[in-house]
């Protein structure tokens, strides 16, 4: 029996939907909910984790993020200005830096800072433990991404702004600091917030630096807790805490972007 194209499209669409709903229902029916609850949503384990997962793990995650973001932002600003410079060696350096660290896995950079440098420089160790080593390593990586964002922001400020500032007698650095950068940063708050969210997640890589009970961030904390309790609930808890931090931020970015789109 021949179907008209329209009928055939409708049949295919209905079939797809049936498969989707069936798969969903089967999973729900077949799953052993009691077991899942015991292993993933175990209230006893949750209670056992509770003070430390927030007071130590979540706190460390945020501290590492803040450290790497602030260091990365400063470095990114310098790199962005180098890339915008008329002096060729600066520009080349910034370009190579950005290509290098965007092209490498963050884990490589973290290992380099934690273990590569001590080997290369004969026992040289950065002071300040995980916080400093981790912030430097992640900051160096984040700077490569944020430098491009800042550069785009600076270029988005019309040339006339600099000209107006200069014609009022401002030096080029004054015009940059008082007129161009404030406008550029307003433009790039959404992408910078995205970068912040990425960094929150990347702090989970810092476990390779080795941790003590007090320096664990969320992922490492959850994993160790999982090993001792032989239960997957810590992972669920860590996931929820991550989402509690990242979801409001991504929501905020969407709102800022919408507002920017309206005002334009």
């Amino acid at each position: 029996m021949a179907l008209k194209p329209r009928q055939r499209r409708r049949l295919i669409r209905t079939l797809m939907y049936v498969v989707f709903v069936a798969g969903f229902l089967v999973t729900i029916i077949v799953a052993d909910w009691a077991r899942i609850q015991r292993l993933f949503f175990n209230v006893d384990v949750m209670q056992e984790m509770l003070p430390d997962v927030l007071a130590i793990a979540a706190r460390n995650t945020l501290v590492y993020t803040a450290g790497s973001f602030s260091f990365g932002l400063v470095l990114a600003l310098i790199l962005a200005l180098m890339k915008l410079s008329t002096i060729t060696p600066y520009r080349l350096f910034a370009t190579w830096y950005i290509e290098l660290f965007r092209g490498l896995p963050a884990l490589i950079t973290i290992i380099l800072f934690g273990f590569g440098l001590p080997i290369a420089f004969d026992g040289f160790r950065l002071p300040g433990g995980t916080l400093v080593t981790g912030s430097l390593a992640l900051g160096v990586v984040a700077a490569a991404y944020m430098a491009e964002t800042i550069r785009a922001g600076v270029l988005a400020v019309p040339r006339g702004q600099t000209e107006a500032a200069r014609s009022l007698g401002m030096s080029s650095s004054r015009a940059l600091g008082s007129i161009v950068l404030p406008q550029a940063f307003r433009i790039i708050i959404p992408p910078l917030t995205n970068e912040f969210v990425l960094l929150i997640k990347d702090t989970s890589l810092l476990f390779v630096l080795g941790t003590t009970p007090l320096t664990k961030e969320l992922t490492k904390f959850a994993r160790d807790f999982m090993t001792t309790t032989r239960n997957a609930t810590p992972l669920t808890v860590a996931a929820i805490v991550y989402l509690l931090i990242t979801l409001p931020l991504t929501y905020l970015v969407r709102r800022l972007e919408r507002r920017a789109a309206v005002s334009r």
Partner: protein
Amino acid sequence: MTSAIEIVDLHKYFGELEVLKGIDFEVAEREVVCVIGPSGSGKSTLLRCVNRLEDPTSGTILIEGEDITDPDADVDRLRTRIGMVFQQFNLFPHLDVLRNLTIAQTKVLKRSQDEANEVARAVMERVGLLDKIDEYPIRLSGGQQQRVAIARALAMNPDMMLFDEPTSALDPELIGEVLDVMRGLAHELGMTMLVVTHEMGFARDVADRVVFMDGGVVVEEGTPEEVLADPKTDRARRFLRMVQEK
């Protein structure tokens, strides 16, 4: 007496293209000079060379006797004496009007915030927009923005003002208010003004001298009557006929 602006044998290349092919002229103190000519004739480039927004390829520009084209010249300091008004206003959108008017006063001239605020109010009064001093530029009409831009330049107490097609980006009904403010500067303050414009009416009424440029050279200059009413050259006649047909 030294001229406010003295331009000697000014050449400007953009790459291979010679935009200014040897310009000589002077603007005396308290004089209003209008530069007219077809687009691409180099008028804006000339104006932008005067405060070194463009670097001249060769030639000399003296600002009240000081050579602004000298590599050792303190260009930032000289620019505080030269107010500049742009076609696109170029107000700072992230600052309210008051901060637009005070930021360079405090940071460049090192005036106190109180003094800067006072000057800002005085110049806003002059351009007739004192009630808009707390607004952000985006909330103002084009004509109002341009008047604020004039006030921003005036707040630095410049000795002279450069206007780069100040009404070309405006809707026709908003041009008059800006020209009125400029007329006031010329007549009441005796401001030295170099104005690149397409407003022949303004040039006729306000200018002491009109300079007609074409193809990177000054083709004609003289009083408004001489240049606008009785041009000597074909090129000027053709241009004026075209402008007046509009």
